[in-house]
């Protein structure tokens, strides 16, 4: 499973409403609106192309979204148990 964080830049006046819409998408977790116009979101997807398509679609279909900017991408399967700190199961 791929896990990617992204900053979703939105129109400031519509930030909260946009976060709600994005929150409703299965596979997406949001972590609040920051700096007035930036939603932090993490997507989980089986394929990288799913993530790309998600980003593009969000940009194209939501008038309030001004940009989708990945910041970190990894895959759960890339790691073994010892790669994680204690307490992570």
């Amino acid at each position, binding site marked *: 499973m791929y896990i990617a*964080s992204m900053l979703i830049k939105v129109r400031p006046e519509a930030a909260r409403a946009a976060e709600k819409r994005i929150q409703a998408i299965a*596979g997406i977790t949001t972590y609040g609106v920051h700096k007035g116009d930036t939603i932090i979101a993490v997507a989980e997807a089986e394929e*990288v192309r799913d993530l790309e398509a998600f980003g593009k*679609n969000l940009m194209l279909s939501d008038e309030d979204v001004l940009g989708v*900017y990945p910041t970190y991408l990894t895959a759960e399967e890339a790691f073994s148990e010892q*790669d994680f700190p204690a307490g992570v199961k």
Partner: protein
Amino acid sequence: MSVTRREFLKLTAASAAASAIGSELMVGSAVMGSPAIDWHKSVCRFCGTGCGVMLGTRNGKAVAVKGDRKSTVNRGLLCVKGFYLHKIVHAKNRLLQPLVRKNGTLQPASWDEAMSLVAEKFSAIIKEHGPDAVAFYGSGQGTTEETYIANKLFKGHLSTNNFEGNPRLCMASAVGGYLTSFGADEPVGTYDDIEHAELFLLIGSNTAEAHPVLFDRLVARKKNHPSTKIITIDPRKTPTNKIVDLHLQVIPGYDLAVMHAIARILIKEGYTDEKFISESVTFSDGKKKISYEGYKRFLEKFTPEYAAEKAGIDPQDIVKAARMFGEAKTAMSMWTMGVNQRTRGVWLNNLMHNIHLLTGKLGKPGCDSFSLTGQPNACGGVREGGGLCHLLPGHRKVAVKQHREEIAAIWNVPASNIKPKPGKHTMAMFSAIAAGEIKAAYIMCTNPAHSLPNLNKYLQGLKDCFLVVADSFHPTETTKLADVVLPAAFWGEKEGVYGCTERRSQHMAQAIQPQGQARWDGEILMDLARRLGHGKNFEHFKTPEDVWTEYITTTKGRDMDLTGAPYSRLRKVRGLRWPVPDEKHPGTWHRFTEEDPLFPKEKAKGRRMYFYNKPDGRAVVFARPDKGPEEPVDAEYPLVLSTGRVLEHWHTMTMTGSVKQLVRAVPQPYVEINPEDAKELGFADKDTAIVETRRGELKLMVRVIDRPRKGTIFIPWHWPEKLANLLTTDAIDPGSKEPEYKICAARIRKA
């Protein structure tokens, strides 16, 4: 309290996002930290923006990627293309061993077998037909070191200038514009100007999708300074329009008249900087010098009404655009393929520079005429490294005796080895391949059987010639035609330097070993050099650093001096913007000004800007005719066809679906039609249509959408199974030799 691995990775990812904007997440009692990853500094390999990327590895495998927070270009952000960066290193279609065509099919071979065959064929062809019977075709995605080695081998040792790179197809017109207007290639300013500009003029650029990280900087500029204005001149409505204040939706190919009309208004309404003009500008009609008055007379024809009629827009919008540009204290223009891929691309580049020269909005914070680049190292390896048929490293030309002598001395070859006549430019090269004049070609890191215009004309020639393709992936449209396919190390598997749009050279670390039997392109080329009997002059290249060290000696004292940017320094910093003549120099923001270490104060005599590569130190304002496209529409082919590089997923779903559901809406290849045209022609959304030009036809799904203007259709060019370039014209700009991908005449009918 414990967390699951997935939850932990999600929090790690979210924290990285927060940290990119200087924010902190409240994640309760979650165990924070990060999984064990080794991070390596690199540069994104997708477009020419030059975004800093950190590639994460674990046990010799690429496992993660994140934006480089220390990069001044992207400050930790990536664009959606960045999702693919580490994934493609281990992609299923990675080429892991050499392939040689036997009995009509490509079959696995050893490196020795493959390279022996390549050397044998190249030797035999050169012996029988001369050096110009072979050619090299490279890429703005290769590293500078790779292009340098290939250049040294082909031009310096094999003595052929049949040496090109795919930037000919995307930015040669920008080069022509900079050279003719300012006397030197590449922009005056840098990205830093974005944070100082009051107005942005975007032309032929869908910045939001093609250069998203720069688009975000425009968004941020507008957020922090709400009075900032953005004008776009583009035949299509695109997501860039979300932040645009004025859109001039021109008929494709008729924007030269619009630019002249804007210049005319700037002069008539007193927005010009007469001191700057008198000190630093001269005028030309392209053949001879003309006076300022003569230029004004030339412009008289370009009334807003005249230009508006040509371009199919409202004359008041031209007036509005000119006034917005004139009234802004600072202004930055940006453009890309919509300007460059034209038969008058150089002229249109000149006209962009004109309005900055007339208003003095150049060479100071917030002011620049700035061509955006499409590939990560088109500027570095190809433009600066001399990777075109008329160039030599360090912005030199093969036609100049002194330049040949200087480079021959560094390459340790007789100057006579480097031929004074430019070789065949890209379209001439592939025409010569089609005609059987070029009998062997070495293609590195590019896919011309997909990307050339008017493809039907060239494919058979590629099949018939002895074709060597060095690539990291197979199959591609070009490897399918090859006689030998060589597995090349991919991004992350090799060290090297990329030079981006803003004259910034950035070092990329090798993070992992090449997959399978893949080798660094430089190593493959040096193997070929040895087998062709030219190994001696390449023996000292043990590492990419050795190659870079020799390369930067070619730049010493040149306008693109990189002497102060050795690997030892580049490894530590997030790139340096040339000229950077010594290791203490910080790099240069504005060229041709006192900030520029090459600025000749004595000659400048108090002038703010001195264009030192021009004999009189003056930039040129050009009175170029407003020529339209090479293939205008007519009764037989009444629609304008434009193609684009952006892969657009689209759908009709609400955002309540899942990511998976959204992706399932990814379309098949399509043609965009304006709703009015669709109504007139009887098309509904998702119908099937045949799009036809004088060169070919394609069956495509119809997408009815208010994006192209009425009378135009648009096809994204990405799908290998539906090659848009079967339809495009191979007519070229007579100056830059860049094809007019953006405009041709077409018709459409129901399938």
